[in-house]
Each structure stands twice: as C-alpha cells, then as structure tokens.
C-alpha cells in the first residue's frame, strides 16, 4: 500500500496525540462535490476487519476493508495556508476533484457507508448544505 505522509503532516498528527494507542482512522464515504470524501479521525478502537496500512513510529493509519482500496496512492499533507488549510488528503488516482479539494472521484464505484459490501451511486453536493445546494 503506497501511502505518503509528509513530515509536516506527521508532526501535526503526533501533536494531536497519536501514540501506540491512538491512531489515524481513514475511511472513504460517499459525499462531497465529486462523489467520495475522506473521513479522517483519531481513534483508539480497532474494529473487526480493520487493518493497519501505514506505520511509522507512533503514526499508524488504520482503515476498514471497504475503504482500503481508496488508500492506494493517498497523500497526506498539512498546510497553514487559509485557502487550503489543515490536513490535505489527496488521492493521486483521482480522475476528478472538487474545487476545495475535499472530495474526489475515481473510475471505481463509491463504497457504501457503514462498511457493507454494497456499492452505491455517487452522491452530489458538498455534503454540508452550507452552500444551499442540497
């Protein structure tokens, strides 16, 4: 699994408290302007079916099997720039991404949320409703 984490992102993640118990959980769920969006949380509970896909010191990246296929060629960076602020999760396999970079699309179907094996069509909009589009 080719996941790239920049030194800046790694430092920021460790500042947030990652250690041998706490890890970064990344999931892919339908949503955002382009179909997929990454869900990235700090978690400390390994669920059935979870796998560790990246490990470097105290930084571990864990994902469920359904989302794992979308971690290939994932890049995680961190920016202080207000326009592209915070953690940037970029999928280099993406064929389309929305303007703010928060969502992407690949040639694959969108996985259903909740870890089932059923694929569902991509949903539209940015997912928040802040723009009033949904």
């Amino acid at each position: 699994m080719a996941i790239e984490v920049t030194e800046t992102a790694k430092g920021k993640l460790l500042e947030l408290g990652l250690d041998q118990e706490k890890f970064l959980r990344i999931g892919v769920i339908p949503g955002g302007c382009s179909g997929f969006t990454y869900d990235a949380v700090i978690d400390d509970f390994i669920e059935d079916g979870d796998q560790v896909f990246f490990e470097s010191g105290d930084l571990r990246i864990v994902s469920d099997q359904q989302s794992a296929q979308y971690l290939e060629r994932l890049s995680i960076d961190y920016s202080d720039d207000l326009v592209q602020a915070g953690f940037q999760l970029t999928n280099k396999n993406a064929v389309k991404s929305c303007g703010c970079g928060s969502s992407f699309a690949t040639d694959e179907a969108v996985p259903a949320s909740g870890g089932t094996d059923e694929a569902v069509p991509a949903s539209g909009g940015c997912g928040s409703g802040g723009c009033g589009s949904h």
Partner: protein
Amino acid sequence: MSTAPVSIKGGESVYCINEKQLADATRLANEDPESGPKIRGTMQELEKKLTRNERAALAFMIIEDLRTSTS
C-alpha cells in the same frame, strides 16, 4: 476504555462557489467598464497591504457578511 473519534478535517465545508458564479465574477472584474477598474484596483491595493492569509481571511469575512446581510 475507548474515546469518541476526533475528526482532523476541520469540519464540513461551509460555502461553495459554482462555475457560473465564478465566471460572472471574473467577467465583472475583468470586462465591466465601471466595476472592473474598481475591483482590480482594490485587489492590487490589498495585495500590497495584506499577506496571503490576511487576504483569505478578508475574503471569507466578505462572503460571510454578504450571506448574512441584505445590503
């Protein structure tokens, strides 16, 4: 004991701009004989006075203000 997962992504997106809005804004700034010079002149002044993050903060504040006010 496990704790609730904490998101690192800064929350959901708040506002988005569609392609037509951006095209209209670009046309107003670049082609409109009355508004164009005012917008471009203000942009040049802001680029001299403010840092990139200050301009971003100003832009967000202007959008927020436009969305919440009627004037």
